[in-house]
Every structure is written in structure tokens, then in C-alpha cells.
């Protein structure tokens, strides 16, 4: 067990070191969701959005839950990219030729992606707070938001890693998140509540795990525990199922690639 932690700690620190040396990339991934979505999109639709429909005091307050989950989505889907590079330049092979537990590489990645995503979510909530959005459920609510984000992130990161291990080329890898990301956002309750969507879109959005996550995060920010708890209970169930499926697929892809 001691050896296992030694491996995981060393591999996680490697990701941290890499990130600290890519300062621009770190800045942009951090700024992008708040700037584009929360500030631009939130203000742009402030007057276009109907308060009766969004059931929120401002569009930004409605959008905050969506931006939080979108951040989890984007980080999760990109979570495997560094492993793709490792696979392509032979570094993964070098790691695998050492006597490490096979899962250390993957676990270190989960820990890293989850931590970075959680920090980003906190930054988004802080910016939203500056824009007048205060989660009514307080610190405990924020902790619950982080937990939901983490559960969703684990499944997404597993999908991303499975792709990294399976794809033949870079292009294949990057085209999937590029293709998936926007439909996932539009076919969810991130920008518009389900009830206000065209029937077919609302129908499809029900099958999007992102919708479940947002529907639990939103009342934690806007309404309170009483409204949030049933949704939180549901999302935990959905996410357990989602994560189990993704982890199963990820483990298969990993075994195929590594042997």
C-alpha cells in the first residue's frame, strides 16, 4: 500500500509540474468558461431571457449552475489528452515497464483532473458571487456542488482516457469532444430550462447526464436545500450508474492498450 501511494503521489505531482510550466494554458482554461459563458453569455441574454421562464432573479444566476457543469464537462472530456501524448511519445510505455500497479497512472490522472476542476468550479462560483450570485445553501451547498461535479467528472474523464487509449490518431481524439461538447450543452438545461425547450429537445435532454447534474446544482444555488435534496438524491443515483458504465468501458480500453 505504501508503494502504491508513492507511485500515485509521484505521478500526480508530474501532472501538477507540467501544468505549472504551462502557465498560459492554465490561465486560458481557467478564464475561458467564466469569460465566455458567465460574463458574455450571461450579460448578453440578461434581457432576452424571460424571468418567468428561468425562475431566477437574473439570467447570470440561472446560468451559473450551467457554467459550473459545463466546466466539468470540458475538463472531463479533455482529461485523457495528456495520456494520449504519453502513449504517442512512448512515455506511457516507459511508465508501464516499471513495477507500478497498473492503475496508478489512471488514478493519478483522476485525482489531478478532479482537483483542477474543483478549483475551477470554486473560481467560477467566486466570480458569480462578485456578479451578485450567492448560493443560498451556503458552504455546505458549495461542497455538494463540488461533489456532484466530481461524480460527473469521473465518468467523463474515464471516457476521455478510454478514447486516448483506443484512438489511432490525434485527430480522432480531438474530434470527439469537439463534436460532443456543444450538443451536450444545448441538449441540457444549462442555458434554458427543460420546460421552455421545444418538445423534442426537452425529451432528448432528459437522457443527458448533464441535465441531471445541472438540475441538482441549480436549486443548491438559487432555491435551498428543501428543493435541492430530491434532485441531489436523483443525480447521485444517475451518476453512480454513469460512472460505473464509463469506468467499465475505460478499464476495458486500458487493458486492451496495455495488456
Amino acid at each position, binding site marked *: 500500500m505504501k508503494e502504491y501511494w508513492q507511485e500515485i503521489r509521484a505521478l500526480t505531482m508530474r501532472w501538477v509540474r507540467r501544468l505549472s510550466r504551462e502557465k498560459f494554458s492554465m490561465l486560458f482554461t481557467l478564464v475561458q468558461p467564466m469569460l465566455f459563458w458567465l460574463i458574455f453569455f450571461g450579460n448578453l441574454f440578461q434581457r432576452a431571457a424571460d424571468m418567468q421562464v428561468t425562475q431566477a432573479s437574473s439570467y447570470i444566476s440561472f446560468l451559473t449552475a450551467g457554467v459550473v457543469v459545463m466546466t466539468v464537462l470540458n475538463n472531463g472530456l479533455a482529461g485523457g489528452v495528456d495520456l494520449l501524448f504519453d502513449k504517442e511519445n*512512448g512515455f506511457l*510505455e516507459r511508465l*508501464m515497464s516499471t*513495477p507500478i500497479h497498473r492503475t496508478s497512472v489512471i488514478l493519478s490522472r483522476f485525482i489531478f483532473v478532479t482537483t483542477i476542476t474543483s478549483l475551477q468550479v470554486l473560481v467560477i462560483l467566486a466570480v458569480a458571487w462578485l456578479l451578485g450570485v450567492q448560493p443560498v445553501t451556503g458552504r455546505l451547498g458549495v461542497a455538494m456542488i463540488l461533489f456532484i461535479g466530481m461524480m460527473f467528472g469521473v465518468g467523463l474523464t474515464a471516457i476521455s482516457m478510454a478514447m486516448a487509449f483506443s484512438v489511432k490518431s490525434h485527430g480522432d481524439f480531438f474530434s470527439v469532444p469537439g463534436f460532443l461538447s456543444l450538443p451536450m450543452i444545448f441538449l441540457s438545461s444549462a442555458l434554458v430550462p427543460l420546460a421552455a425547450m421545444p418538445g423534442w429537445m426537452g425529451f432528448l435532454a432528459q437522457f443527458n447526464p448533464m441535465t441531471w447534474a445541472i438540475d441538482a446544482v441549480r436549486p443548491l444555488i438559487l432555491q435551498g436545500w428543501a428543493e435541492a435534496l430530491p434532485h441531489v438524491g436523483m443525480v447521485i443515483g444517475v451518476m453512480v450508474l454513469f460512472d460505473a458504465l464509463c469506468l467499465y468501458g475505460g478499464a476495458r480500453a486500458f487493458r486492451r492498450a496495455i495488456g
Partner: protein
Amino acid sequence: MSRAVAIEVSHLKKTYEKVRAVDDLSFQVYAGEILGLLGPNGAGKSTTLRILITLLHPPSGSATILGMDSVKDADRVRKTIGYVPQERAIDRFLTGREHLKLLADLYHLSPEEASTRIPRLLKLVELEQQADRPAKTYSGGMKRKLDIACGLLPDPKILFLDEPTLGLDVQSRLRIWDHVRAMRERGITVVMTTNYLDEADQLCDRIAIIDGGRIKALGAPHELKVGLGGDLVSLTGREHDRVELLAAAVKDLPAIRAVTTTPTGLDIRVDSPEKALPAILEAANRLTCQLEFIDYHRPRLDDVFIAHTGRSIKDDQPKAENQ
């Protein structure tokens, strides 16, 4: 003389999408030697190496490393071997020292052990000055040295090198050769793949020539050359019919071992050039067979390769082996 066997490969097979990458391969590696797997790209060298370092599971056959099975005892095997991959498997954002620290943790070294080994290795591969610079600032030769330091970090009993000097300039190559020889001096068994004839010839104690996933020849470079039988006299003739006549005439001369007709003339294996050369020239004169060019040389590894595979290793276009 029986020697201690470090690696025993027995009837190894591995197929990729119906192509036999490795086809019934069997050989032994002796403790303390440098064994070279020589062959063109796609011959099955890297596949063999990856089976030996436990990264590939052979569907049939077995590989035993220091008595441990490459599949069943994979974890124990990994503790005793070092591996230097073909690609520059370097994280460009990490410094040289950080690479070694990372690997020290992956080999479960104690901090004290790591802090004595790492500076020693950096000194050995002459990277002390650059140890704290990110690897993206390193030259190809420096990256290779770091690769080798990484391979040596676990203090391995066997070191596997995949194309150790591919793409390096001459000076860096010679330095790497020195490092490999130094490893042998320290008692490390080295298994390396190469598609450079001179590297195999000068660096390896024994060579396994691999082509089409099979071993075509195995032995010390000089044994393989001697095994070809005699020095080689190559004649380029002007008229084809005359060359045929000459072939018939020289066949039974003393000191001649074998005569083969080539598209341009004759290849003649001779025991003693002092006796054979005048006799060949005399016969050519007598038959008025005009010669354009005469070449005489000791057998080279290239000749060994051609003799065993039917083609020159240089015929193969360099391309990345993707197996």
C-alpha cells in the same frame, strides 16, 4: 563452455492483424553479454523486445527472464530490468532530474537511495550541468543520455535498448556506444535492437539477424562472417556469355570455394586471395573475358545479412516501426 543464461526465449509467436510479427522465435541471451537484434524495420525486433519487457503478452511460446516468466512474473521481471524505449520517451516539461525522481518513486526507492543514485547517474551520462533544465531544451543526444540514465535508475541486471542511436549524430552515437560498453563492464546484460550494421558489428558480442519475424542467423559477428566461408572477390564483366564461361573455368581452381553468378558478373568466395586472384585473372585473360571492375574484401556483416536474408538491410526504406 556453458554460460549462465539470462534470458530464454522459446517458440515465441505474435501476430498483428494477420501479419506474423514474430514467428516461432527461440534464442538465449547469456549473462553479461551485449546481444543485438539486427534487422530491417518491421522485422519483429521491437515486438520481441516488448514481449521481453513484459509489455506484450505472447499468444504462444514463452520468454523467461532470469528464471521468471514474462507474463506470470511480470511484476518481478519489471523490478530487475531497465528499458530505454525507441522514441525519445521524455516529458519535455520536466527537467532531467525530475525524470529520474519520478522513476525513483515508480521503482519504490527510498528518498535516501534516490538521492544517492540520481546524482551518480547524472554524472555518468554527463548531464549534471543540464539536470535542472526542462528536457525540451535538450539536444537529441542529451535526450538519449537521459533515456539511458532512466533505464539505469533501477540498477537493472538486464538493460533493454530499442534502437539506442537512431537519428543521432556520429559523435553522440560513439558516446552512447561507450556507455553501453561501460554497462557490460559493470556486469549488466544488454539486449538491444538496431538496424545499423556497424553498430551491431562493433558493439554487440553476439547478433541475432531477424527478418520476417524469424531468426536467420545467430552468433558473434566474426563467427557469422567466417561462417560465410572465405573472402569475396566480386567481378563485373562486360559480356555476359564470357562471364558464364569464366564461371565454369574458375569453379575448379584451387583456393576457390564457391562461385555465384550475379546480374553484373561473378561473386567468388576464395580461401586465399594470394593464390586465387592470379588464377582468376589468368583464366579471364585466357578466355578473353573482359572485366570492368574487380573488388576484393573480407566478408562484412552486410554480406552476412544478404547471405541469410537474401537482401541488403539498406534496401529497406527507413520508416517508424509501428508494432
